Every structure is written in structure tokens, then in C-alpha cells.
């Protein structure tokens, strides 16, 4: 996912920047960008997009005429997709702004175009057997009133997360857990970047849910998978550590009917999205 975008002009000053996520040690980064911009101008990049890895980030850059363009993205990002986005950005800029006498003065309207290019959609699928609290979790994430009765989901319920996480629109897919709907799971998981496997933390349910972890690995091998040990308020609940051990994926505790868990849960999902699969082993 793109964390920030910079365009540097002729004298290696920044004429446009947009930050979607907090950038760590920003001053050092900017100094680095200025040096980089100077450096890549002297190289013949042939308007190709190149990239380099810095810690957990991946920096994409290219030059067109007097301008240098930089994306700060994640290592887990798909390079070809980002190269494509870079091309789009460069094209828009060169066509509409570079022709102006001083582009840095007249960038209105550019922001919206940048958003169009940089903002992505992230699909988070919520999977688990019937009644474990998936729909409750969805409502919790959306900050809605929490239903106290089990009204089984039919097929799938798809809702946006009101917050953007960095520059991604999050779409939550709350899959129906009843056995008869299991024929849909495979198709519904397609293209999910994150899969949240919800359990009600009873031994029986957690053991059964191992099958879901398996299914997810088969259907969407590139997705980041996390477990949820829900219903921690009930006496039958296994600890999240135990649930995590059984499922074999990083697992977090939850009481989905308790609103105070909301921020924590959003942080967990944010982390899962930013880390992606690339970090799964750590």
C-alpha cells in the first residue's frame, strides 16, 4: 500500500507531497529523497520505474523530464501494481501540471487525482462457524449498536469500515457460518488480503476451526490470516494463547459484545493489513 507520494522539481525541492500514513523520521527521509532525486537524475532511467528496499518499506522512483517521482510503499506490495500506479501518476502530472509555468503554485485538483490512483481497496474476510460472533464483530468494528440475539447471516454481508486505514478503503466480508453456506466460502474468500478467523474459544469450536485455517491457506495463499478468540467473557473460554497454538496463526482475544474492545480490534486489523503476508513468519 502506498504510504506517501513525493514529486521533486528541477532544483530537487519537493513540489508536491501527500502522506497517507505516518512517516517515521521524516527529516531524514526528506534529505534522503533529495539526494536520491539528484542521483537518479544523473542516471539514465529511461522513464522506467525502479525500486529499492529500506527496512520494511519499498521505495519506488522514476524520473520524467525535470521531475522525480517517489512512492513510499510496503515490501509486501505487488511491484507490478505499483509500477502501474506510478505510470498513471506520472502521466496525469506531465499532461496537466508539468505544462504550467510553476506547477507547485497551481496544484488544485491534483490531490483528488492522486487519491484516485493511490487509494486502494482492501478486502478483509471474516470467517468462522455459526454463532461464534462474526456479525457482532462486524458491528463492533463499524461502531454500531451490538445485536444481542443470533440472527444468522444469509450468504454474506458486505460493509465498509468507516475509517480508512492508511489510504485503503476497507471492505469487510462477513461470511455466513451455517454449514449449508460452506459451499460459498471458497468463492467469497477470493482476493481477500486479510482473513480473520473467529472462534468462540470453546475447545470444540477451535478444533473444528483448524479446518478453516486450512481452507484459507488453500484458497487465498497470499492472504494474511489472524485468529480471534472471542467470547472471552464466558467461563468456557480457552485463553487466546491456547487458541492461537491450536489454530497455528497469530490470535487475539475479544469480547465482541463489549464496545471497549473496538479500538484494539481496529489496531489489530490495521497491523494485519500493513504487514500483509510478508511478515507472517516473524
Amino acid at each position: 500500500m502506498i504510504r506517501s507520494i513525493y514529486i521533486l522539481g528541477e532544483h530537487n525541492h519537493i513540489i508536491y507531497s501527500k502522506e497517507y500514513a505516518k512517516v517515521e523520521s521524516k527529516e531524514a527521509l526528506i534529505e534522503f529523497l533529495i539526494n536520491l532525486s539528484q542521483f537518479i537524475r544523473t542516471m539514465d532511467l529511461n522513464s522506467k520505474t525502479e525500486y529499492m528496499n529500506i527496512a520494511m518499506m519499498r521505495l519506488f522512483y522514476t524520473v520524467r523530464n525535470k521531475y522525480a517521482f517517489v512512492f513510499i510503499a510496503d515490501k509486501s506490495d505487488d511491484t507490478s501494481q505499483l509500477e502501474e500506479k506510478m505510470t498513471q501518476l506520472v502521466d496525469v502530472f506531465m499532461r496537466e501540471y508539468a505544462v504550467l509555468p510553476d506547477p507547485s503554485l497551481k496544484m488544485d485538483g491534483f490531490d483528488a487525482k492522486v487519491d484516485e490512483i493511490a487509494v486502494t481497496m482492501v478486502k478483509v474476510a471474516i470467517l468462522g462457524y455459526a454463532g461464534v460472533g462474526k456479525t457482532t464483530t462486524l458491528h463492533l468494528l463499524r461502531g454500531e449498536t451490538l445485536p444481542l440475539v443470533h440472527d444468522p447471516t444469509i450468504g454474506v454481508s458486505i460493509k465498509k469500515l468507516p475509517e480508512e486505514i492508511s489510504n485503503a478503503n476497507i471492505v469487510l466480508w462477513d461470511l455466513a457460518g451455517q454449514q449449508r453456506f460452506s459451499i460459498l466460502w471458497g468463492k467469497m474468500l477470493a482476493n481477500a488480503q486479510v482473513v480473520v478467523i473467529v472462534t468462540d474459544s470453546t475447545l470444540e469450536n477451535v478444533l473444528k476451526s483448524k479446518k478453516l485455517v486450512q481452507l484459507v491457506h488453500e484458497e487465498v495463499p497470499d492472504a494474511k490470516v489472524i485468529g480471534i478468540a472471542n467470547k472471552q467473557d464466558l467461563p468456557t473460554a480457552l485463553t487466546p494463547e491456547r487458541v492461537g497454538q491450536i489454530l497455528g496463526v497469530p490470535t487475539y482475544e475479544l469480547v465482541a459484545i463489549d464496545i471497549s474492545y473496538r479500538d484494539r480490534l481496529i489496531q489489530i486489523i490495521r497491523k494485519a493489513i500493513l504487514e500483509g503476508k510478508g511478515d507472517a513468519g516473524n
Partner: protein
Amino acid sequence: MPEAVFIVNLDEFQGFIVSQKYPPSIVLNERVLNLIFYELQKKKKEQANVIEIDGMRIVPYTDEKHPMWFVCFILGENEQYNEIVEEIEGMSRLILMLMEDITERIDLEYIFTNRLKLEKPNDEQICAAIFSTPSSALLLEKIEDECLERSARLALWLKSQIQSDDVDLREAIMPLMKAGIVNVEMVAKTAEMVFLVKDIFTYRAPPTRALQAAKESHPQISDWYEEQIRNFFSPPPPNKGYNPTIQTDNPNSPIMEDRAKIAKFLAESKYYEIIKCLREGPCSLDTLVRRIPFPKQLIEKALFKMMTERIIANNEEEGLWMLITDPRVDIFLPEFALKLIVRKYKEKDVSKEIALRHLDNLIEVWREAG
């Protein structure tokens, strides 16, 4: 007459999207769309079925090529499903095909109120469709060489050819089975065998029927028309005419490439419907638009595409389109199979039982024919 029609797409990010509906006043909610999708997943595709949801009787339709799209009709109160199922399937096929070819919205109202349909693919199209799937076309060549082979070995061979573990023999062989080119059978409970029972040949034939029709209906162009055909099949020397029977094993040879092209024109309805009309004789664009349920622009585009491939020609003076080569796919008895079966038996590659089963298969398929 159904009350309404709507088209739904299951988008991998946004979920169910009703992409078009008629009449525009119909209201649909997520639950209804979910239940329709669920019922479709349970049932066999390419066959409409009635589902009752909230007092509505809905008939959804989807096909293998568009698993994430479905077309739904809402039945009228006293409507008998059996009486209109064919019509619904025909309209659905047309809508799905147009969705693929047209970037703008399709004219759903026009299709719905005029009951425009696309027929089921016929035998000719089913045979031609083999060449639309590269792994199936590849498999066909292999089976033509082997005549009979164990499924397991074919699966290995296919994997090595395509260099991927994702390729599925079942999927690749399905078009061949549908076209009746091979039979797949368990022999003696041990070996699943693939038997070649028909051979297939695609080529361009001279459009004799269309030319004959032109002589009667449009005598003013028949000489011109005949010349176009002659130029293709037997042009004056030193040019060589079309000869589809030249033997070649090179998959990149022009003749092989041409066969694949011909198959594509037969398999894809947007071309095939036009070819079917032109086989009966020359037609103007207006006539084609009247006879074929596609929008004019689509027909025009298909015509120009076929013209560049020398399937058809255009007489601009008379405003007429006509076939100069008739794309054909023919089915033959694979006589060479018998020799190969015997050889494989002698070399102990296959058992007597398997060899006899293959012979039985051939006899069964060809007994009635000829």
C-alpha cells in the same frame, strides 16, 4: 411473460452489484441476492430453475464462462415456468454474451420486450470450442497421436507441457468429451482410459450454397462474387490457392494458426450467427441487423474483423456482405486408430481388454453413422 429482469455481478471487493435491471422500479436487497447466489451454487449451471424468495418466483441463470455473473427473471403471477424456460434461457445466454462484448450498458429493455434470444451452441460450435481452450487444443493433438492413453499419463504429460501444476486434466478434457471426440472410461477397475472415437478437422470450404443463392437472388453480383471465391481458392499462378490438407506438425505454421482462427469464428456467437446467415446467401447490413439479435455496432465490428481474415467480402456498390470461405469443422472416423490400437497391444502397452473396449467404443459411436 416474466415481470422483470436483472443482471447481478458478484464483485470480489464490493460484493453483489445489480448492474442493470428492467423495469427500473424493481427493488432488490442483499438477502435476496445472497439467496439466489446460494441456490445457483447448489445447482447445475446453464439450466434455469425457479427459486421462491419472499413470495417472488425468481429464475436465475449463469454459465461456466461467467461464474460471477447471473441473469435473473421474476415470473409473473400465473406464469408457468415450463412454458417459458426456453425463452428465459435464450435471453439469458444473449445477455451474458453481450455483457462480455459491449462496454456500454446493454439495451435490456429492448431485449426483454422483444424476447431476443441466443440459441444453445450447436454441435458445430461445441466442436469448435475445443480450440478456444489452449490446453484442450494441445490435448487433442496428443490424443490424435496416441489414440488411447491412460488418464494418469495424460495428466502428467499435460503438466509437463504447460509447466504448471495448476492445469487440470478434467478441465482440459471436458470440451473434448462434450464434443464427443473422446470417451473416458474405467477399464477393469484399474485404469481410467481416454479413447479417441472421432477425429476433427477445421478448414475453409468454398461457399457453394451461398454462391448458388446469389446467382438467383442477386445476379448482378454473382460474377463478381464467384471471382472473389476463385481468387482465394485457386488464384492465377504463381500464387498458390488454399490447401488445408498440407501435412504439418509445426504448431506455429500458418495453416495451424488459420485452423485456430476458423474455430474461433465458429465458437464465438457474435461471428457464428453472421456466418449462419451468410451461408444462405449475401445479405445487407440491415438484413443482418434484422435477423441477428445483436446491436448494429457489434455486427459491424464482427463483419470487419471477418473481412480482414478473408472469411467474408463486402460488395460496396450493392451494400452486400457475403462469405468467400465457409468456416467448417468436420468429424471423421479415425481409421488410423485401429492400426495404433493393434500396435499398442502387440507392444504390450495396453491389455487385450483395453484394446477391445476401444474397438467397442468406436463401433458404438459409428454404427449408426454413414
